[in-house]
């Protein structure tokens, strides 16, 4: 899939490839090729370093973007998957289990939204939108991690909670709330990485911890930009505006002090160079884990309390608007 704003880059790439083919071993077209390569480089830099918030949303949604499976396979020596909520079902939209990180050797409870690898697994995993049994499995895994003193690492990548009949029948609001409560009282480090989409309460159920990192082109939003536009502007076509207005990019959120760190992506986005993006996440994970591993549970929970307790955009009446 080629995104609209990627088109100039892709066209240049195609032309360069054509010329290479035409030129063969001869040096005749080398001048032209060099010229185009320079143009490509500067087009990339121009386009990708000025992505609008909504363009970043599109990058975050790119089907070739490395997803949970890619991170799991690349970052963990071993992933011992656990399943089931012990009450209703097993939800493939979200996966979790014990993982040994190959880089740092840390044992963690690794949990992530699974957007799948192909049409079949995407459908099966409901495109990364969990059902209540998924949230309940996650809570079970949070509690297991706590029981074994093992840090929790979440990889967030979901369009959001699922607007579906069965999800409501089985109480998704209750299930999400239980996840948030479980995270609040977890005695182990909770490390959250937004690797793609961070949509609504569905994302938050896995994105409230002691460290929250976001890849440069990921987003975290209370509602999908399209839905926001259709409610507030009464026009889903104004999604780009809504995305900008809600300040949902990694950099915006770093500025709002809601996330700790923006992890840079390779030029062109993680889908253009998956290994580099995964490597960046893995490296950061190792550093954060090392830092948080020594913190005692009481301090962890107290710090986490204060972290979330302070987030808000409110002020005493008549005073300057400022973070409380």
């Amino acid at each position, binding site marked *: 899939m080629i995104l609209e704003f990627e088109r100039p880059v892709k066209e240049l790439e195609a032309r360069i490839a054509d010329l290479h083919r035409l030129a063969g071993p001869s040096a005749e077209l080398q001048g032209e090729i060099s010229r185009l390569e320079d143009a490509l480089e500067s087009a990339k830099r121009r386009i990708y370093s000025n992505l609008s918030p909504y363009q970043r949303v599109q990058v975050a949604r790119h089907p070739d973007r490395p997803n949970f499976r890619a991170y799991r396979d690349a970052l963990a020596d071993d992933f011992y998957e656990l399943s089931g909520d012990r009450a209703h079902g097993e939800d493939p939209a979200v996966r979790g289990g014990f993982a040994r990180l190959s880089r740092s050797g840390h044992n963690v409870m690794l949990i992530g939204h699974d957007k799948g690898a192909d049409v079949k697994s995407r459908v099966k995993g409901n495109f990364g939108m969990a059902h209540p049994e998924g949230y309940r499995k996650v809570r079970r895994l949070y509690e297991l991690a706590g029981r074994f003193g093992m840090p929790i690492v979440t990889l967030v990548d979901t369009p959001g909670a699922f607007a*579906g009949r069965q999800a409501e*029948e089985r*109480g998704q609001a*209750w299930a999400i709330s239980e996840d*948030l*409560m479980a995270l609040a009282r977890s005695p182990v480090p909770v490390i959250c990485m937004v690797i793609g989409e961070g949509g609504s309460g569905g994302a938050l159920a896995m994105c409230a911890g002691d460290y929250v990192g976001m890849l440069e082109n990921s987003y975290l*939003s209370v509602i999908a930009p399209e839905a926001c536009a259709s409610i507030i502007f009464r026009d889903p076509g104004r999604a780009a505006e809504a995305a900008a207005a*809600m300040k949902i990019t990694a950099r915006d959120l770093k500025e709002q002090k809601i996330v700790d760190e923006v992890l840079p992506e390779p030029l062109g986005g993680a889908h253009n160079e998956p290994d580099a993006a995964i490597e960046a996440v893995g490296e950061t994970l190792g550093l954060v884990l090392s830092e948080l591993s020594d913190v005692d549970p009481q301090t962890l929970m107290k710090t986490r309390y204060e972290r979330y307790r302070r987030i808000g955009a*409110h002020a005493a009446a008549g005073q300057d608007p400022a973070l409380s």
Partner: protein
Amino acid sequence: MHRRREYSRSVPETESGLGPMDSVFTKCEKCGQPVYEKDLRARFNVCPHCEFHYPLSAPERVRLLLDAGSFEERDRGLVAADLLGFEGYAEKVEAARKKTGLDDAVLSGAGEIGGRRVAFAAMDFRFIGGSMGSVVGERVARAIEMAYADGLPLVIVSASGGARMFEGVYSLMQMAKTSVALSRYMEGSWPYVSVLTDPTFGGVTASFATAADVVIAEPGARIGFAGARVIEGTTKERLPEGFQTAEFQREHGMADRIVHRLALKGDLERLLGFVA
């Protein structure tokens, strides 16, 4: 078939919840019977003919549930800061403040129920659809912290259309904020009672409103995460009669009791008699 009410229609424009302030009587949207405004008001917006529960404002909720004169409002004067500069938000807040006389979509403080002191918060759907922004999150969190510090039972009455999108991710984070506060409170052994009223959706339902020891819902109240119209739009599925009503939620194991509004104070007094 039961006509699905639209949120916009059931937003009470007046204290009584129906009709313009100066009208003497109005027509019940549910049963079509004529209703005197003063009768409706005397019954806290419950139709005297069909017992339909219209939304109730936060100040009326205080009058309904707390012992007369016992309410001490806390954290008055906290207002939305519009840190994102979201187009039209400041005006919206200003208009809602004027209309309701409230700072935001929640009223909170301490009070007594049947002589027992409680920490109390009630949401108000008239204020931008009861949406949860930073002020709602902050006042709810402070009410919880007061309950924790003073060892009080906690009673929260919810009514919310969902998130306050104008506040972006700040709005989302109020779920985490109220959850950390509540999680600490629940380590103690004071009771937390959540009352769900029409409508309660979105981030409120997915955080503090459902994590209670006892969940009470008003009859017919629509409660859920995603609204019915959104679900029908997404899945193209026709939803069954009574979907997401209080009765539906009780049958699905999500609520303890359905309690008529006019019996609610008595019900809370009974409950607090056991656990407070």
